[in-house]
């Protein structure tokens, strides 16, 4: 029996399967700098259990991680470190701005705080709150999963092209 649309759907289905497996194996790199970290720990503790969304394994090497969680205030002195960690991550990669400080600088508008990490690196999901409740964080993870399922890796949808962040350099020139 001939399946309807048998030939024309193979490629797209394969993408769906790959994206499905991507979205349930989000190894996170916790870039935790400030008070939001407490709420981050709550999310990945047993009570709220981020593991339900396939993202329970923290990787402290950027090379092994898929999603960069920027949790807390980033200041201008730290910005080169954040950028370097991002550049060291292997594609495909995603970034979550966790909390008001990471999303917009929060209430810091001064000589030290970066006004939102999207001024340094591209961001996929912004989670609002100071700090966000664990429910909001889980919602953010679900949004990220939706984005991964629908659009695949970043750069393939024309939004946030990764050309401005090329393959990482091995030394500081």
């Amino acid at each position: 029996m001939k399946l309807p649309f048998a030939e024309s759907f193979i490629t797209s289905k394969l993408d769906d399967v790959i994206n499905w497996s991507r979205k349930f194996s989000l190894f996170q790199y916790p870039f935790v700098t400030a008070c939001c970290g407490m709420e981050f720990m709550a999310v990945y503790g047993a009570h709220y259990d981020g593991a339900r969304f396939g993202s329970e394994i923290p990787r402290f090497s950027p090379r092994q991680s898929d999603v960069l969680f920027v949790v807390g205030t980033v200041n201008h002195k730290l910005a080169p470190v954040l950028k370097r960690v991002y550049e060291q991550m292997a594609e495909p990669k995603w970034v979550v701005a966790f909390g008001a400080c990471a999303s917009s600088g929060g209430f810091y508008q001064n000589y030290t705080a970066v006004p939102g990490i999207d001024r340094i690196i591209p961001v996929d999901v912004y989670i609002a709150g100071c700090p966000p409740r664990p429910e909001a964080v889980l919602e953010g993870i679900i949004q990220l999963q939706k984005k991964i399922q629908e659009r695949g890796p970043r750069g393939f949808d024309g939004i946030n092209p990764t050309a401005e962040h090329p393959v990482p350099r091995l030394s500081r020139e």
Partner: protein
Amino acid sequence: MADAAHPPEPRGEAKLPALTALLEQKFSGQVLAHHAQHGDETVVIARARMLDVFRFLRDDPACRMEFMIDLTAVDYLPRRPRFELVVHLKSLSLGHRLRVKVPVAEEQAEVDSITPLWVAAEWYERECWEMYGIAFKGHPDLRHLLLYDGFRGHPLRKDYEKGLAQPLVPLRPVRERWNYGERFMPVNPEQEDQAS
């Protein structure tokens, strides 16, 4: 509340508190002003012989300030002299404490380092130097503590432009983001080269 158990603070020409009196007697002319509130004494001393005063406070058996609690500065912008160095001292053995202030003029923003007396003051002085631009003569290692090489200006001075950031990484333009009236200044490339 002033009642029988808590008599009101003596006012007017009352007897000087112990530490202030001691300093007045030992360094007459160096104590520019003083006051005390709720048993906490404050003295304002002249910059010229400040190191002698601090050494006396540390070593004299009636003072014995072993513990430097805090060192910072205040910028009173229109006032002259513009800055005031504020040092908090405590004696752990005698259980008293003292606040010492030193007026510092903007044109000559340099004071003696008290790091040779209290090692704990080293990082406080580094912070005070980068935030207020007050140099510490005799400090062993006066360089940035919280800021970075290439940062121009002193951010806690009242005339540092509010919100003026000096990013180390060029900032990306962000589409569809309301701009909060940010002001940015590139970090001096020459100084940055020296740092790396």
